[in-house]
């Protein structure tokens, strides 16, 4: 007869550290901790010894030294007598500039391409497939180099705009000048009282958001739907335009003009910025197109059929039924594409656009020889950007999460 017996053996034996699940996890963790600490100590020790052997010190004092190099594309004042810290800030702003521009255009390109790939027009769908596969399977660095080469090789040089019968002329009535060194766009000139216009515009944005919230609440409460689009557009633009003309048009545009061998005035965007921006947008756009396509396909057909059965019009079906569900699938990978775009913008260094990698990780690093400090700051910057983008993503995921029982 079998007896079930508990040995009741509570004596601790060394073997229990491995074979007893109560202790095993601690054993493993303590061993891992010890190995980790040893490795870390070894690395830190090596670094200290190496730095000492090279006579280098670890300090961030170099940030206050004069950078003595030029940055040709910048958003804030900077000259070669500014400090390395200022150069780094210029670089960081340049990274953010190209990242934000790129994210906007990549979204537009991606949504259009993704929708067209699902189009029932056979030819257009195939064309979009070629676009997507072509961009996804060739390195982004090659695309960046190609785009910059396209600008440099195919667009006219500034001196071709000269003379009575020039080879090239500005586009859109002088507003846009495309040269092989970069693009010129009009710059807004803020006259007196122009702040009033800006403030009115910002206020209208606030009012519009408030109005939309109120309209949504009202719709949920009463079921009545207001013509949202015209009203919001009216709120957005009418007051601003009114103030703009009442104050006598305080904001004017400064057009680029040809003076001597080059254009003056307007905002100048260098070939490297344009090339980087276009290449990143098209490259990320190809990935975005796939995400958008997958998102739309993920909403089952029954959803739109159900919406039609309820009598919703196609526009409403899209807005109220399809999009909210598709966006839940689309937005998280879309945000990580934004993150990728931001990180890929570090390839700017290959075309000479001075982003954070070009200033902090490039010239500043080479000039000061402070590899450790420069790379630490650079990585910290990128980490902060990506962790904040992930935080936004987590917040969004939490907000749109399906609330099930």
């Amino acid at each position, binding site marked *: 007869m079998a007896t079930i017996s508990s040995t009741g053996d509570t004596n601790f*034996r*060394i*073997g229990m550290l*491995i*074979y007893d699940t109560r202790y095993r*996890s601690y054993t*493993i*963790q303590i061993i*891992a*901790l010890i190995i*980790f600490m040893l490795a870390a100590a070894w*690395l830190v020790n*090596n*670094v200290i*010894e*190496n*730095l000492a*052997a090279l006579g280098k010190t670890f300090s961030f004092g170099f940030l206050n030294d004069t950078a003595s190099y030029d940055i040709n594309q910048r958003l804030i004042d900077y000259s070669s007598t500014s400090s390395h810290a200022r150069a780094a800030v210029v670089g960081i702003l340049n990274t953010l500039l190209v990242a934000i521009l790129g994210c906007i255009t990549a979204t537009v390109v991606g949504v259009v391409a993704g929708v067209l790939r699902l*189009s*029932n*027009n*056979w*030819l*257009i769908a195939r*064309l979009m497939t070629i676009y997507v*596969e*072509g961009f*996804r*399977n*060739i*390195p*982004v*660095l*090659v695309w960046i*180099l*190609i785009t910059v*080469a396209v600008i440099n*090789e195919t667009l006219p040089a500034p001196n071709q705009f000269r003379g009575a019968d020039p080879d090239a002329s500005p586009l859109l009535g002088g507003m846009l000048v495309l040269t092989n060194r970069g693009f010129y766009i009009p710059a807004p000139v803020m006259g007196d009282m122009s702040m009033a216009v800006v403030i009115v515009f910002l206020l209208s944005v606030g009012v519009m958001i408030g109005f939309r919230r109120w309209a949504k609440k009202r719709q949920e409460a009463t079921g009545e739907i207001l013509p949202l689009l015209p009203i919001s557009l009216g709120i957005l633009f009418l007051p601003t335009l009114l103030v703009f003309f009442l104050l006598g048009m305080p904001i004017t545009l400064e057009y680029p003009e040809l003076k001597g061998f080059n254009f003056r005035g307007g905002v100048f965007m260098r070939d490297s910025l344009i090339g980087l921006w276009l290449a990143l947008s098209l490259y990320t756009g190809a990935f975005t197109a796939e995400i958008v396509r997958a998102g739309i396909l993920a909403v089952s057909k029954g959803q739109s059929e159900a919406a039609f059965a309820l009598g919703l019009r196609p526009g409403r079906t899209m807005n109220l039924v399809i999009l909210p569900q598709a966006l839940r699938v689309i937005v998280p990978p879309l945000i990580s594409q934004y993150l990728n775009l931001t*990180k*890929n913008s*570090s*390839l700017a*260094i*290959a075309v000479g656009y001075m982003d954070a*990698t070009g200033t902090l*990780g490039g010239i500043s*690093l080479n000039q000061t020889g402070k*590899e*450790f400090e420069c*790379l630490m700051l*650079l*990585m910290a910057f*990128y*980490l902060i*950007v*990506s*962790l904040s983008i992930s935080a936004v993503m987590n917040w969004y995921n939490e907000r749109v999460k399906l609330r099930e029982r």
Partner: protein
Amino acid sequence: MSANREPFVASGDIPPSPPPSSVVGPVAWVRENLFSSIPNAIMTLAGLFIIYSLLASVIPWLFVNSVWNATSLGHCREIDNGACLAVIKERYLQFIYGFYPEAERWRAILTFVLMVVAVWPILFAGAPRKLFYFSAVYPALAYWLIWGGTIWGPVGVMLGPIIAIITYRILSTVLRGTSMEEGIAGVLALIAAGLAMVIWWLLGVELFDGTVSSIVSIGLPVVESDKIGGFLLSTLIGVSGIAGSFPLGIALALGRRSNLLFIKAISTGFIEFIRGVPLITLLFVASTLLNYFLPPGTSFDIILRVVIMVTLFASAYMAEVIRGGLAALPKGQYEAADALGLDYWKSMRLIILPQALKISIPGIVNTFIGLFKDTVLVSVIGLLDPVGILNPIRADQNWNGIVWELYGFISIFFFIFCFGMSRYSQYLERKLQTGHR
């Protein structure tokens, strides 16, 4: 009269008349797929125009007016106004091998051919299983073939795991004979085996290499790392990165999902750090900083440093992909494995990972493709991968100003490789499809 006429009775089936041409056939297809509505027709026309203008500019340029035989860009332009493919003809060997010595190029080709043999059993189920042994020794063989030097160094390195296995076998039998508790004996043997391997690598390999070389010297001429370039370098970095990042990624993914707090923290920290910074900063670390982390006086090969960084980079992404697969697996699978009484490693190896990896195939292959594309970044730190090779060519007086031919050549190479990989992943997905569809 009509009385004589028989009423019509069908004696057999009347063949169905063909559908009207507006419903089937090419006309109907065109009407339905290209011109179903006015906006659709406009889009079709626009698409046709785009295709026409692309083809009208590319085909004469690339096929009709292209120049294959010329000595410089100016010479090309004199002959015809099409693509100056003479530059490709002159430099394609550089694109493939970099500055690898001409007399030794057979080694690169052999390495590549052997790679196909080594990869075959991994990729396709039909291959003889014995080939796996070849795949296992292939890395050392490839290293020896590419870099040259004496063969005994790589052989010594490959002996490490064998020594570890032998140590483990002997020690565990010996220790079992004693009165020592079994668990302790196993762990002691394992630790001793690991130590033996590390000690062998640190001290034994050099000695082994020295002694055996003095007796039987088999070697190839040494090729320095700065001679290796072109697609050879891309493939080298790409394949080593892929081979290294896959196991590392699995380990990190398991680590991140582990219940052990400390292991989880390390894995998560590592993954988030690597994913948060661009590869280029890691390559800067490889080129400027990595030597600081090693004992003073040691320095190792730049290609090896880059491979390590690329592997670490890809493994973090791989880990996230595999973690997605692990999370997508129904909880019942984990519970069933536990219910069968399998321990952690057995349940992972036999039940969880095969399914999780299958789910994550598309993501895994995407990571591989990304890694392969990212190898061009090494040109930024001065290695001569295809993009790095461009600069000396464009700086050459003869070919100054040439753009499209070179970029096109590189793009085609990457497109073929990456597109091939994505097709393979689709094949694999179909093959492993076990769902009831």
